[in-house]
């Protein structure tokens, strides 16, 4: 296809320098198509506009999100991990609670299946020049299920509530150093501004579905969500029974296209095995979240489609940098060199994961620097490092972790691998509550252990991993890693709006982390959703959120 320079110039005449730099990167091959769409949408450029730019550049049109095209009116039945408590969109941090709230309530923007951030309750957004103020335009004519129209006051109240220290919201950590109470300001009924503490190049992700507690609720919300279920979403609650399940029906007043299913039924389970049996027996159509290890029976089942979404979710192995033997970075690197990452992906995770390179920059992030060399298993080099650190005669260590998904198996693999360099690794596997303890230093095996493995969910951008677990003042820095250089680079990364500039900083951070190796990131696992053959239009994202408005039965 040929390039239409005149049309491109017309498009570019209204763009900011950062937006034009992104277009340049795309035209000259420095930025791939996916990254172009993803970062363009992050900067507030609409997907149709990005599609027109791609067409004018001679790269063809962008894909559109098509509806199932099947008979409307189906009932879709979903097996879901039971919510661990009362549904409160403000504080829910478990899969069941997040999915329940997300069925009826929405976000300013959606971090979708393809991890491109799309407008939802906000129609557009723009940063100021340095990324300290982001202006969002709200969609008009959106109604809560209670009948009230959604306006700026609701959005302002939502974010003030989320960042309030009294709220107990998990989202507070996401907004740490970025947004404070009172910093979300109403411009008019349909425009709001976020005045940030520091520049943020990825801010739309922080107010998207990737930050699951940032769901937009009425300004009057004061708890008791299970009594009202008042959101703006495509489904309304019909019935909710704690520990049993929930039924939703189509919201005929929805602002967007009406949902195809007339009804959705969520059935709660406390274990994965009964979910698999229920799908095989035809009693459910979908398993929302299927762990690769325990769900292996379904991965090759011809009657089941597996939706596999690449994510940044990982099992973080921390190595405490402030105690022996990990005070010496050579020992940390030696342990990292023992990991056979290909085996982890192909064997342990049945190919449903991507290799990690000992930094939170997962391959799914456009800002991840692809030129950073991949760390590979090298036992000979690991032995040399141990010898140089004076540990050629070996060392005894304990790896403390929790019973969750494939973590015990992962720990056993590490135990076998590090034995080759003389590390006698004892495993201490606890339940989640015991492992987390008080989540404070001195009162938490998680934060106190010399070596541990902790699960971290997917995030739309890696910022959260830095603020929560890697920076010197991070509250969950289990590796006790402190580096001024790292902190400075990270702040610089947060503040950067331009994709190529982000990659340049990310590359420096990745190299620094490879050198220091406070944590091991062996693999990033996919979110798997099992769908019965014949059920189409189901969308799931890396956060385990489930979108059923386009679902139908063939």
């Amino acid at each position, binding site marked *: 296809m040929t390039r239409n320079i005149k049309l491109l110039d017309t498009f570019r005449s209204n763009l900011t320098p950062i937006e034009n730099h992104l277009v340049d990167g795309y035209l000259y091959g420095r930025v791939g198509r996916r990254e172009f769409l993803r970062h363009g949408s992050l900067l507030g450029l609409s997907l149709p506009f990005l599609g027109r730019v791609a067409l004018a550049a001679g790269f063809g049109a962008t894909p559109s999100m098509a509806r199932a095209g099947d008979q409307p009116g189906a009932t879709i039945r979903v097996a879901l991990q039971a919510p*661990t*408590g*009362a549904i409160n969109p403000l*504080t829910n*941090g478990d899969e069941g609670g997040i999915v329940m709230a997300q069925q009826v309530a929405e976000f300013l923007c959606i971090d979708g299946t393809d991890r491109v951030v799309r407008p939802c309750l906000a129609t557009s957004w723009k940063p100021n020049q340095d990324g300290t103020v982001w202006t969002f335009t709200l969609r008009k004519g959106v109604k809560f299920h209670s009948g009230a129209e959604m306006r700026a006051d609701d959005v302002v109240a939502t974010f003030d509530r989320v960042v309030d*220290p*009294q*709220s*107990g*919201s*998990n989202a*507070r*950590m996401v907004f740490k150093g970025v947004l404070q109470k009172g910093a979300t300001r109403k411009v008019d009924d349909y425009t709001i501004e976020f005045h940030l503490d520091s520049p943020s190049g990825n801010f739309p992700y922080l107010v998207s579905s990737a930050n699951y507690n940032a769901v937009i609720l009425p300004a009057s919300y004061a708890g008791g969500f299970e009594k009202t279920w008042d959101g703006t979403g495509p489904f309304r609650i019909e019935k909710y029974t*704690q*520990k*049993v399940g929930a039924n939703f029906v189509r919201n005929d007043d929805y602002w967007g296209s009406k949902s195809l299913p007339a009804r959705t039924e969520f*059935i*709660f*389970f*406390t*274990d994965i*095995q*009964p979910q698999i*049996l*229920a799908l*095989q*027996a*035809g*009693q459910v159509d979908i398993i929302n979240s299927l762990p690769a290890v325990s769900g292996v029976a379904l991965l090759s089942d011809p009657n089941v489609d597996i939706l596999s979404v690449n994510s940044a979710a990982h099992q973080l192995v921390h190595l405490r940098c402030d105690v022996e033997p990990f005070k010496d970075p050579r020992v940390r690197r030696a342990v990292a060199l023992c990991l056979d990452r290909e085996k982890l992906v192909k064997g342990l995770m049945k190919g449903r994961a991507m290799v990690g390179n000992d930094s939170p920059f997962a391959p799914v992030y456009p800002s991840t620097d692809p030129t950073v060399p991949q760390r590979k298993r090298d036992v000979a080099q690991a032995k040399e490092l141990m010898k140089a650190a004076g540990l050629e005669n070996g060392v005894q260590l304990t790896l403390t972790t929790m019973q969750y998904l494939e973590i015990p198996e992962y720990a056993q693999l590490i135990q076998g691998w590090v034995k080759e360099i003389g590390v006698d690794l004892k495993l201490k596997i*606890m*339940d989640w*509550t*015991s492992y*987390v*303890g*008080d*989540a*404070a230093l001195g*009162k938490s095996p*998680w934060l106190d252990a010399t070596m541990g493995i902790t699960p971290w969910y997917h995030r739309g951008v890696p910022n959260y991993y830095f603020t*929560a677990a890697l920076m010197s003042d991070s509250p*969950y820095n289990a590796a006790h890693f402190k580096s001024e250089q790292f902190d400075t680079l990270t702040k610089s990364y947060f503040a950067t709006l331009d994709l190529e500039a982000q990659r340049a900083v990310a590359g420096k951070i990745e190299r620094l982390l490879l050198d220091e190796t406070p944590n091991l990131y062996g693999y990033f696992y996919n979110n798997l959703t099992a769908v019965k053959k014949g059920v189409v239009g189901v969308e799931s994202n890396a956060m385990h959120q489930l979108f059923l408005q386009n679902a139908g039965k063939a």
Partner: protein
Amino acid sequence: MLHYIARRFALSLVTLFVLSLLIFFLGQVLPGNVGRFLLGPDADQQAVEMLNHQLGLDRPLLVQYGTWIWRFVQGDMGESYVYRTPVVAFVSQALLHSLKLAAVAFLIVVPLGIMGGIIAALKVNRPLDRIISLGGLTATVLPEFVTAILLILIFGIWLRWLPISAAWPDGAGALGQLHYLILPAMPLVLVLFGYIARMARAGMIEALDSDYTRTAVLKGLPWRLVIWRHVLRNGLLPTIAVVATQTGYLVGGLLIVETLFRYQGIGSLIFNAARGRDFPMLEASVMVIGVTYAVATLLADLLYSFLNPRIRMVSSR
């Protein structure tokens, strides 16, 4: 007899008091922080402390115990930390579910087990006895999750005769509920059949070999009457005790069956409450199981003493 009942009743109360102490104080030694668990690892420490204060967890343990037990004896089971609603609704619902499942399993396994034991005893050391004894033993030693999954695969997935979830739809009548409970009851039947049959068999063999049976035969009583009047009445006494002791297990110990069949019984309620540090739910559920168990054993003891006058005489001395 009244003295005996009063003694047994008082003993049950003491048992329940000790149980309340155990469940309360053992719950406290479980590691982890309730507020932290409920709000998640990312929540602000200030919010965690505030929640712990709201839940009264920062008060002295004895005060917490006193408040809880005082309310409990007055019928107030408290409010769930996790669901923020009264515990009584969950516990009563779960207890009702567990009793229904236990009743279905009991109604199948008790007559079947006793009949199996009687037949085995009457055909002792013959092929039928061997089949019942070995078959029962095999079924008993197979873990419930193995038999449950096998039954689900056969009857739920391959043949599709029975639903694999025990959660019946809203408005289902007694027969409809029974349809959903048959498959979950089967692993319990398999586990208990061998146990009950062996006890019945042993009791029967002992009774058949006793002097009073020989006397009854020699005085010319018809064989059926000997079995019915003398052998069964004496031979089944130990079986009654065994059946009673299984009540606690059938009501509160069915975690695996409840999980596999997605059944909201009290076993899974206890497990999830312990896992989620939902102490009011945990304490109330365990106490309810304790009461159920105490009532069942009391009834069994009364039945036992009714059937066996020697017990009454010993206890009244």
